[in-house]
C-alpha cells in the first residue's frame, strides 16, 4: 500500500465519494490542497469570488442534485465567510461537506495569523464537525463526514484540517462502509404507526397533506403523488416543500403559511386530519400555534424525531424516511381495498368547500397597464419556461412572489433559503445548479437589494461561462421590510428606501454579460423572451411598482386564518 499525504487523501476521498465539482477559494492554510487539485482533472474546482458564494454554490449543487455539495476555504476569514452558507444549509437540511484549512497544529490556540476556531464557531450550525489533528484519522473522518452529511436528516459537516496534517503522510485506506455506534440515522417507519395513521385517514372527512422539504430530501414525490391521487386528499406545501408535489395538479392548494394561499390556510384551519410529511411546523407556517389546526388530529412523518412534538402536539408520530413511510401507507391503503371512488365520495363535501375558498380568494394581484407588477413577471416567466426551469431565489418579496406564482412541477426545481432566509443566496446557488445541469435553464429571481449581497459571483458565473438568467425585480426598496413598515410601523420607512441603486445594465456589461431593462408591462414579454433565449448570462431588470406588497399575509404571531388579503 502506498503512503499518501493528507492533501492527496482529501482529493482521493472526493473522487471515491463521486464528487465531480467543488467550489472554493484558496489561501495560505489550504494552498497544499489546491496544489494537489491542480495536478488532477477528475474533480473540477470552481473559483468563487467570496467564500460565502462557495458555500451557497455547494448548497445549490446539493439541492438541485440531491448529492453532497462540497466547498473549500482557507483558515480564518475564509472559514468564517462560509458560516452564513453553512447555517443556511443547516436550517434547510442540505447535505454539504465544508473543508477548511487550519494553521499548523503546533500553532493552534496561539492566535496565529489567520487562525480562528472554526470548529467552535460552526458547532451550533453544522450537523457535525471535526478538527483533524492526526493524518491517520483523515480517511475515516472524511468517510464519516460524507456519510453523516447525506444520511438521516441531511446537513452540513465541516472538516477543519491543519496545514501540517495536509502534508503528513500515512497509509491510505478508504473505508467502503461505515457504521457509527453513536449515530443511527434511519429508523424504519413502524408499521403499527402506519396502520394507525391509515385507520385515522379512513375515518377522515376533511384531510390535508402538509408537505415540507423532507419529502424532497427523501425523494418521496412519486409515493406522495400516488397517495394523494388514490385518496383524493388535497396537498399544501411549505416553501421548502414546493416542487415535491406538482404545482399544476388540481389537488395542489399551493403554499401555506404567512404568505400562503387563502385556500391552503383555510384548509389547515378546518381540517380534521393533517398528514405532515417531512415538515417541521415552523412559525412561518403555523402562525399563532394555539390556533393552528384546532380541529385536526395530526399524523407526522419525519426522519428526525426532534421535529416531532417540537412545536405542536402530534397524535400519530411516524419516525422514519418519508418515502418509506408513504410507501407503507400506500400499500396498506391499497390492501384495504377502498376504491378511488369511495375516497372521492368521502371527500366530496370537503372539495366543494375547498373550491369555494379558492373561488372566494384566489391568489391574485391587480394588473396595471402602466406599471409592471412583479407577480406578472413571475407569471410570464412561468408560462414561457413552462415550469421546467430550475429557479433560485433571493430572500424577501422576490422569493414569496416566486413561491406564489411559479408552479413547480419537478422535484428539486426551486432552490431557496427557507429556514435561515439568507439574502444573497440565489446567485451563487444558481451557479451550483448550473454546474450540475449545464443544459437546463437556471433562473435566479432576485430583488434589487439581495442581488447586491453576492453580486461579485457574476465573475464566477462568467468565468465558468454559465448561461444563468437573473431577473431583478427592482422596486428600489428592501421590499419585505418596507411592507412590514407599511403595515405595522405606520409607513416609517426606516433604512429600507434605497437612495442609490446601481445601473444593473452597466453592471452586466462590466462583467461581459447581457443587461436588459423593462419599465412598462408591454415590455415584459419581449425582455423575458430575449433574455431567456440569449445564449449567455443575462440580467433582466424589471422596474416594478414600488410599493407592491405580498398578499395574502398573516401578520407575525396571528392565527393563519387572520389573513390580510389583496
Amino acid at each position, binding site marked *: 500500500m502506498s503512503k499518501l499525504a493528507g492533501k492527496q487523501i482529501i482529493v482521493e476521498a472526493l473522487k471515491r465519494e463521486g464528487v465531480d465539482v467543488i467550489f472554493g477559494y484558496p489561501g495560505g492554510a489550504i494552498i497544499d490542497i489546491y496544489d494537489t487539485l491542480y495536478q488532477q482533472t477528475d474533480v473540477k474546482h470552481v473559483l468563487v469570488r467570496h467564500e460565502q458564494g462557495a458555500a451557497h454554490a455547494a448548497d445549490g449543487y446539493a439541492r438541485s442534485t440531491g448529492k453532497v455539495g462540497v466547498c473549500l476555504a482557507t483558515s480564518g476569514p475564509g472559514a468564517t465567510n462560509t458560516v452564513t452558507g453553512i447555517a443556511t444549509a443547516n436550517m434547510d437540511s442540505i447535505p454539504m461537506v465544508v473543508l477548511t484549512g487550519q494553521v499548523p497544529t503546533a500553532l493552534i490556540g496561539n492566535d496565529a495569523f489567520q487562525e480562528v476556531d472554526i470548529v467552535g464557531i460552526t458547532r451550533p450550525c453544522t*450537523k*457535525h464537525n471535526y478538527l483533524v489533528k492526526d493524518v491517520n484519522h483523515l480517511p475515516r473522518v472524511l468517510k464519516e463526514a460524507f456519510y453523516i452529511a447525506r444520511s438521516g436528516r441531511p446537513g452540513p459537516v465541516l472538516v477543519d484540517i491543519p496545514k501540517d496534517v495536509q502534508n503528513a503522510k500515512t497509509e491510505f485506506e478508504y473505508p467502503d462502509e461505515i457504521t457509527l455506534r453513536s449515530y443511527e440515522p434511519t429508523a424504519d417507519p413502524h408499521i403499527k404507526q402506519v396502520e394507525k395513521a391509515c385507520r385515522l385517514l379512513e375515518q377522515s372527512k376533511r384531510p390535508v397533506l402538509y408537505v415540507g422539504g423532507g419529502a424532497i430530501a427523501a425523494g418521496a414525490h412519486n409515493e406522495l403523488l400516488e397517495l394523494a391521487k388514490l385518496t383524493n386528499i388535497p396537498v399544501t406545501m411549505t416553501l421548502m416543500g414546493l416542487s415535491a408535489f406538482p404545482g399544476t395538479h388540481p389537488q395542489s392548494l399551493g403554499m401555506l403559511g404567512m404568505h400562503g394561499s387563502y385556500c391552503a390556510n383555510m384548509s389547515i384551519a378546518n381540517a380534521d386530519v393533517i398528514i405532515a410529511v417531512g415538515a417541521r411546523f415552523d412559525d412561518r407556517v403555523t402562525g399563532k400555534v394555539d390556533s393552528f389546526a384546532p380541529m385536526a388530529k395530526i399524523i407526522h412523518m419525519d426522519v428526525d424525531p426532534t421535529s416531532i*412534538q*417540537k412545536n405542536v402536539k402530534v397524535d400519530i408520530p411516524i419516525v422514519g424516511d418519508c418515502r418509506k413511510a408513504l410507501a407503507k401507507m400506500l400499500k396498506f391503503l391499497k390492501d384495504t381495498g377502498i376504491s378511488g371512488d369511495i375516497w372521492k365520495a368521502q371527500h366530496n363535501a370537503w372539495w366543494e368547500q375547498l373550491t369555494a375558498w379558492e373561488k372566494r380568494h384566489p391568489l391574485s394581484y391587480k394588473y396595471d397597464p402602466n406599471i409592471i407588477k412583479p407577480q406578472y413577471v413571475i407569471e410570464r416567466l412561468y408560462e414561457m419556461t413552462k415550469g421546467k426551469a430550475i429557479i433560485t431565489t433571493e430572500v424577501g418579496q422576490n422569493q414569496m412572489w416566486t413561491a406564489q406564482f411559479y408552479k413547480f412541477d419537478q422535484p428539486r426545481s426551486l432552490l431557496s433559503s427557507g429556514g435561515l432566509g439568507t439574502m444573497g443566496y440565489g446567485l451563487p446557488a444558481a451557479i451550483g445548479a448550473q454546474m450540475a445541469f449545464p443544459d437546463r435553464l437556471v433562473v435566479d429571481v432576485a430583488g434589487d437589494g439581495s442581488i447586491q449581497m453576492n453580486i461579485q459571483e457574476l465573475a464566477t458565473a462568467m468565468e465558468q461561462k454559465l448561461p444563468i438568467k437573473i431577473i431583478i425585480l427592482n422596486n428600489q426598496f428592501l421590499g419585505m421590510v418596507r411592507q412590514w413598515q407599511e403595515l405595522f410601523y405606520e409607513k416609517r420607512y426606516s433604512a429600507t428606501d434605497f437612495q442609490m441603486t446601481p445601473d444593473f445594465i452597466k453592471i452586466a456589461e462590466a462583467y461581459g454579460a447581457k443587461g436588459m431593462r423593462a419599465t412598462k408591462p408591454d415590455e415584459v414579454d419581449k425582455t423575458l423572451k430575449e433574455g431567456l433565449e440569449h445564449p449567455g448570462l443575462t440580467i433582466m431588470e424589471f422596474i416594478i411598482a414600488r410599493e407592491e406588497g405580498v398578499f395574502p399575509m398573516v401578520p407575525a404571531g396571528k392565527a393563519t386564518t387572520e389573513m390580510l388579503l389583496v
Partner: protein
Amino acid sequence: MKHTLSVLVENSPGALARIAGLFSARGFNIESLCVGATLDPTLSHLTLVTTGDDAIIEQILKQLNRLVDVYKVVDVSEGEFVEREMVLIKVKAEAETRAEVLRMCDIFRCKVVDVSPKTYTIEVTGPESKIKAVVNLLAPIGIKEMACTGTIAIQREKKNP
C-alpha cells in the same frame, strides 16, 4: 419538574461543548453537570440534572440523541435510581463552635478532612436533600468556602429479576 439524565458520549474533543451548547442554544436549563470516565476509555459518562415540563424533557432527550457524539441517553428519574453528590465545606470552628460542628458531622456521617486552628473542612456525601440540610445547619456557624461536585446517578437494578 426535575429530571436526572445519564448520558454516555464518545470521549472525543468537543463532545461536552456540543452538549453544553445544545442546552444554551435552545434555552434548556442545566442545574448540574458531572462528567467522568467509564470502563470503556472511548466513552465518557455524564450526569445532567435539568428541569422542564414533559414536552421540554422530551425535546431534551431527542436533541441529545440527535448529537452524533451521543451514544445513549437515559432519564434515570423515570424509574428507581440512586443519586449522590459530594461537597467539601470549610466551616468556621472556633472555641465555642468546634464541638458543635463535630457533633453535626457525626449526625450526618460527614468526614473531617482538614483541620486548622479556626476551621474544619468536612466532606459530605449524599443526595441533594442531605447536602442542603447540612449546609443549612452549618450556615449560621459560618461557612467560609465550599466546593460541590454536582449530582451523579445510576439506575437501581430490578430486585426481582
